[in-house]
């Protein structure tokens, strides 16, 4: 077991973790934070996406022990009351079908808008192609990102 100190959603957690345990499983099985989902375990589907220092990363491939000193944000921490412009747009466009991929989608979109508040279709394609949606909500995700961008431009806090 390794002693690891992680900053997750602004809170410091001290954990005893098996060496090599990926952040995904530290979150799910040690912290009972189950918002981050397991989909493939090989870094392809993006269900397990979290933000590390503001950038989307696949937590199934990130050894938790290597994340000391980094700011980790999970879907639980983006805006717990759900009022981030991306979450609101996602609800208004009713993006989720089964919902399993959506935590990863929302965080990826939030990071995109943080870097680029007015993304074009190609920027959106590039950013969002890392997260699979088996239910096929892609068309709505594009609409929701554009809606969120408009809200942000209209002066909503991002």
């Amino acid at each position, binding site marked *: 077991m390794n002693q690891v100190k992680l900053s997750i959603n602004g809170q410091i957690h001290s954990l005893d973790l098996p060496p090599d*345990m*990926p952040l995904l499983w530290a979150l799910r099985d040690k912290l009972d934070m*189950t918002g981050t989902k397991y*989909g493939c375990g090989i870094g392809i589907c993006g269900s397990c996406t979290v933000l590390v220092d503001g950038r989307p990363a696949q937590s199934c491939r990130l050894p938790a022990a290597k994340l000391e000193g980094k700011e980790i944000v999970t879907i639980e921490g983006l805006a717990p009351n759900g009022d981030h412009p991306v979450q609101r747009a996602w609800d208004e466009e009713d993006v989720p079908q089964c919902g*399993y*991929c959506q935590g990863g989608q929302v965080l990826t979109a939030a990071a995109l808008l943080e870097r680029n508040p007015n993304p074009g279709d190609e920027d959106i394609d590039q950013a969002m192609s890392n997260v699979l949606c088996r*239910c*096929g909500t892609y068309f709505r995700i594009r609409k929701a990102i554009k809606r969120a961008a408009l809200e942000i431009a209209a002066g909503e806090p991002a």
Partner: protein
Amino acid sequence: MKTRETDTDLSRRSFLKVSLMASGALMVGVGFGGQSLASGGKDETWVPNLYVRIDHDGTVTIVSKNPEAGQGVKTAFPMVVAECLEVDWKDVRVEQAPLDDRYGRQVVGGSRGTPDGWDDLRIAGTGALYMLREAAASLWGVPAGDCSASSGTIRHAGSGKSARYAELLDKAATLPVPDVAALSLKSRPEDFNLLGRFVPGVDNHKILTGQPLFGADVRLEGMLYAVYEKCPTFAGKVKNANIDEVRSLPGITHAFVVDGTNELTGLLPGIAIVAESWWQADSARSKLKVEWDTSHSDSTADFDRQAASLAGGSGKTMRHDGNVEEALGSATKIVEASYYYPFVSHANLEPQNCTAVFKESGKMEIWAPSQNPKSGRALVSRVLDIPQDRIHVNLTRIGGGFGRKLRSDFMVEAAWIARAVKRPVQLQWTREDDMRHDFYRPAGWHHFRAGLDDSGRMSAFDHHFITFGNGGETISGAGLSADHYPAGLVPNFRLRQSLIETHVPTGPWRSPGHSAYCFAYQGFFDEVAEAAGRDQLEFRLDLLSRSFGEPPLDLKRTSDTLRIAAEKAGWGRSAGPGRGLGMAFHFDHGGFVSHVAEVVADGPNIRVEKVWSGIDVGPVINLSGARNQVEGCVVDALSTAQLEITFAGGATEQSNFHDYGLLRFNQAPEIECHFIQSDHPPMGLGEPPIAPATPAITNAIYAATGIRVRELPLRRAGISA
């Protein structure tokens, strides 16, 4: 609890019951009479099929009895009740029911939720409103017919009196229950205020803030995590394994062999590894060395060889109208083509998982993302020999169903492991387990011959279908109805079928059968229309204009969906160089859907730019949910057209998304839906839009590139999307 109830005429066969709860809430339940009728309707244990509860604070709670897999039932059903009860949507709460026999059917599948629920939901809402209106009328001494209702309030225009529902509960509970048959139920879009609108899902907030909802989000005191290794060759048994070594690895609490049975849909033999965290269980699994006893070596190469040899045979005749050989002999032209599609996997994004605890009392409690929890409970009961009434199943949100979670293998595995370790256990399959142990949609080969007459119509249609069987019977998800169109649309028709024996587990996959063979039929129609020198739309509408004997589908509803999709897509326009439009119609699971797809091509590289859909499933309940299903089905069709599952040595060759790559964001087309709100009861939409989407796309590929896709995945035709 005070209870008053009525049984009703058998034509509607429903039963309404009103109770005043100890809390002062009014509960209105509706369900089928069944035993309650037999016992004079006085059975105190009777629990309705569904109920509506109105609390003193005006909140309306509606129970949702079916599992939610993203098909939107948890939002759509309560909307129906709210519509009929005349309450504001914001005042409605939805509660997920557990598995309980008294709720009747609790299945996601066959797009049947909507038609099954439609009457009960409207009766519940309308019956409750009736009682509240009667209550107000009697308090005010006015005729109930003069009272109107909206936004949770009854009003009497003459006297200017009004009352919130919450104020009328006590009175309502004392009144006689209305005769269900006499209730006038809203049924048409022009009656609706809420139905037909775009309403976001009731679980959105939890989904978007990462709160627990799904099977693997369950956390119980003292819970352990399990993985389960099965033989890559289906149903292989454990001969030897280094269990002791695995048990000594860090975090491992248990490791043991499960003998299982050889029933593919039951508890397959394997090795359970249980640990303090899933990661440790899975890490230990990588050290596992097992020698398996396997009994077969099915392979795709062998299936292909058998299919080729069967194609030369005559097959078994399933239907023969007129005389096909004679009609082909006198045809002015004969068109011949063969189509093929491979096995595919469900690949729900949520790999199978299940949580179970076996209590000292001998009771089993299970949390399952199951599309069919009742059959899961029956399987657990049979394999573990626990009476069904000692098994309680909680329904979690399902991370994608598509038919995979109609099977309950993951439930019986979790239950078995939980009983063995005597602690709560969460079984989580890996993606690899999921892809290697699916119940696949079977491959199929279709050999067609059509004879054209002088007017360019099909005078004969001959079809030899090669599909899969076991012991001479078609297996789950295989086969084809002998009455499927174009049977009944052409004067001379023959369907012959041949079976390849297999040990591969197969099962229902979104719109079973249809989602596969519609591609073959509608692709071939394209070829026939072209050979006849006719426009694709005109050819299809003409095909749908007459029948020979019983029509295989409603000709008008089908044609109407095709017409509207074509009109909206601007059918007939010149698409321009490197572009093409393709179309297809279909009917399954009660829904009529046609699509027109537009494809842009750069050589063999194509992009599906847009799809126009014409849909008739009766009145639309939730516009958002309905569109979501159409959009999802189109993406699913385009995704699946690029995928295949193959077998070697009795095992699946693909294992994860690197070799079974679902469609990504940048490949998704725009989708425009046009609903024809025909005067029929509403039907579900989880399945009907997928079948015609594949051929609309492949026919558009032909129009854009001149390449006819007769085999899937697309890359076999040299196409890359």
